[in-house]
């Protein structure tokens, strides 16, 4: 009869990982644990192989590729316009930022000037989308920490954003709204009223969330001084977004390499000081308020005019050349590199997903942590696995 010992346990990664030397030799036996690809805390199909000594993590290695969909290769097989719907699927939580990264890159390659009204509409919708992404992170993070209720509140608020974006874009999650040279359609007449209602409503909700959750002593105990990420480490891994800003580096693409009309808006870049999970939490919570401020300013200066560039060619065929365009997504710097050979189809597309760099910080932070802390850190990095695998 087949026994446990006679069967080889684990796949290539597990065995490979187990064969490697432990960083620090321990007295007793250690345990190789596969967290994922199906696990409630990995929010998708991320897999972490960890070596555990009791509840403490000795080593950790993320295994990727379970949701690799070849988005970059797909870019080399379709026209510039046809590739746009892929963008909403790379990071479905902040789809509009990816939309923007792609159309921005192609516009830069072709030298297209986007009308001001379209730019402002892009800013409003992208910031709304950022709030909805941060809200979902907030709920899911607290779910990781064992609080079941906040995610329902977050979803109720997020629903309102999705209702607003639905009236503009026609979809609720994987938006495909921006076009090369502008946006798909002009905003409906009642859009501004809905957005202003939402801003007032959400401003009244945020204090409650802070009272109920941010100031909770159990949450503080689970976040403060957990997963302290020094700014040097964050920079060396290429971490961006709230993960980098939580460590005290005020790097925001909207300020560092201003695109669109962001240089005309007054907003702050919230930063943390110690770089623990609580700092990343606070940065995201503060960013939602900053996004509200940006949206308000944008609504005030929404001009009349066309929403598509007037002199667009019939077919999008950029000249030979290459370009790189970066936008600030909810998770960090989203970069698109396009290489054009003068044909209607891109020669090469490279997508820089912020989650990829942010995830690899985790393998370093998790060492020496309790399992519960490691999952708190994982949640605080706000990973979207489809974006990492692309």
């Amino acid at each position, binding site marked *: 009869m087949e026994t446990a010992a006679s069967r080889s346990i684990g796949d290539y990664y597990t065995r490979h990982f187990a064969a490697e030397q432990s960083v620090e030799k321990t007295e007793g036996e250690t345990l190789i644990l596969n967290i994922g690809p199906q696990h*409630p805390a990995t929010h998708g199909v991320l897999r972490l192989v960890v070596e555990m000594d009791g509840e403490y993590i000795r080593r950790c290695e993320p295994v990727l590729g379970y949701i690799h969909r070849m988005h970059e290769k797909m870019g080399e097989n379709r026209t510039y316009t046809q590739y746009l719907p892929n963008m909403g699927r790379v990071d479905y939580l902040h789809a509009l930022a990816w939309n923007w990264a792609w159309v921005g890159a192609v516009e830069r390659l072709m030298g297209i000037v986007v009308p001001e009204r379209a730019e402002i509409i892009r800013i409003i919708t992208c910031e709304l989308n950022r709030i909805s992404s941060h809200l979902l992170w907030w709920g899911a993070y*607290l779910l990781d*920490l*064992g609080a*079941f209720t906040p995610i*329902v509140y977050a979803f109720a608020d997020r629903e309102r954003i999705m209702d607003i974006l639905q009236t503009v874009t026609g979809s609720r999650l994987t938006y495909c709204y921006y076009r090369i040279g502008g946006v798909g359609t002009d905003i409906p007449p009642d859009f501004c009223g809905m957005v202003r209602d939402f801003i007032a409503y959400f401003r009244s909700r945020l204090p409650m969330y802070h009272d109920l959750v941010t100031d909770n002593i*159990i949450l503080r105990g*689970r976040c403060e001084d957990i997963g302290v990420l020094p700014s040097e480490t964050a920079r060396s891994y290429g971490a961006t977004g709230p993960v980098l800003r939580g460590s005290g580096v005020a790097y925001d693409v909207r300020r560092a390499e201003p695109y669109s009309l962001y240089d005309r808006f007054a907003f702050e870049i919230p930063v943390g000081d110690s770089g623990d999970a609580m700092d990343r939490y606070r940065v995201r919570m503060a960013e939602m308020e900053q996004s509200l401020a940006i949206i308000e300013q944008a609504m005030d200066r929404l001009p009349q005019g066309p929403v598509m560039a007037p002199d667009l060619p019939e077919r999008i065929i950029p000249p030979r050349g290459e370009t790189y365009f970066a936008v600030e997504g909810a998770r960090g710097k989203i970069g698109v590199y396009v290489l054009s050979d003068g044909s209607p189809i891109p020669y090469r597309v490279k997508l820089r997903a912020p989650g990829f760099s942010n995830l690899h910080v985790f393998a370093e932070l998790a060492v020496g942590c*309790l399992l*519960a802390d490691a999952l708190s850190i994982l949640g605080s990095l706000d990973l979207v696995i489809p974006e990492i695998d692309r």
Partner: protein
Amino acid sequence: MIPTMLHLLAHPFIRIVIALVLTMAFVGVMGLVLVYAERKVAGFIQRRPGPFEVGPHGILQSLADAGKLVGKQLVRPFDADPFLFWAAPILSLAPVVVCFLPIPFGPTLTGMQINVGLVLILAFSGLNTLALCLAGWGSANKYSLLGSARAVSQSVAYEIPLLLAVLAIAFQSGSLDLTEITLTQRRSVLSWNVWVQPLAFLIFFVSLVAETNRAPFDLPEAESELTAGFHTEYSGMGFGLFFLAEYTYMIVGCAVASCLFLGGWEGPVADGHWWFLAKTFGLLLAMMWFRWTYPRVRFDQLLNVCWKWLIPLGLANLVVTALVIKVVG
């Protein structure tokens, strides 16, 4: 004939058998009611209606779920130890039924009146830890193993403050019989032990939440960390029994708490078992409220609360109680 029947019914053995059968019925029904209540409370806290489809206001939902659990295939992992694996859920539920015997539901409604009732309850409820341990070991799953390791250290740690709180009441009442402890609080609402021993009540209730593995102390089955902890590998009624046992331990704990601290069956008006049930349900609702409000604590924080706060406070409370009784009484 009838006198003979009554005589027979009054026989202690027959009485225990009847009490056990009634307890089983009570446990079954209360399990269904509490699952429904829990889901409705969760719905209320989360701004949603909760179960609403099966029966009016979803009232038959638990029954449908129970039917589903009974109907499901029982799966045992390849490497699991069959005996330990199946013994665990049974061992988890079986002892808890005995715990109901000494609980006085009303002035005369007690399964078995013995003078060490409290010890009996504490002893039998301690067996649950063994069940969790067996489940974790027998499942041949790493998550289960971690879950049961957590369960054991948590239960062992929190049994101490629980006992200290109970001891303070036992000192004060001079009895381990729950009926007698209830009777000592008879004079008025103000003579309930919760006013006399507020610290003991606090310690008891916190330890109770931890002993029953309820959130925010639900570490042995921490979903986002250990998938489902010790019952990861259980399907159908294997899981159902663990689930029922968890709720039954909650009932026992809250029933004991209402006897010890809230005057049991006594109320401002019309004493009787309804007061007892109302108090028990009140405490159960508080436990549900905790679960749907707080995040989960970490394991070392959980043990720190126990060793650094609850046990020293419990000891101090016990010493003060003993001194006061010595001086006053």
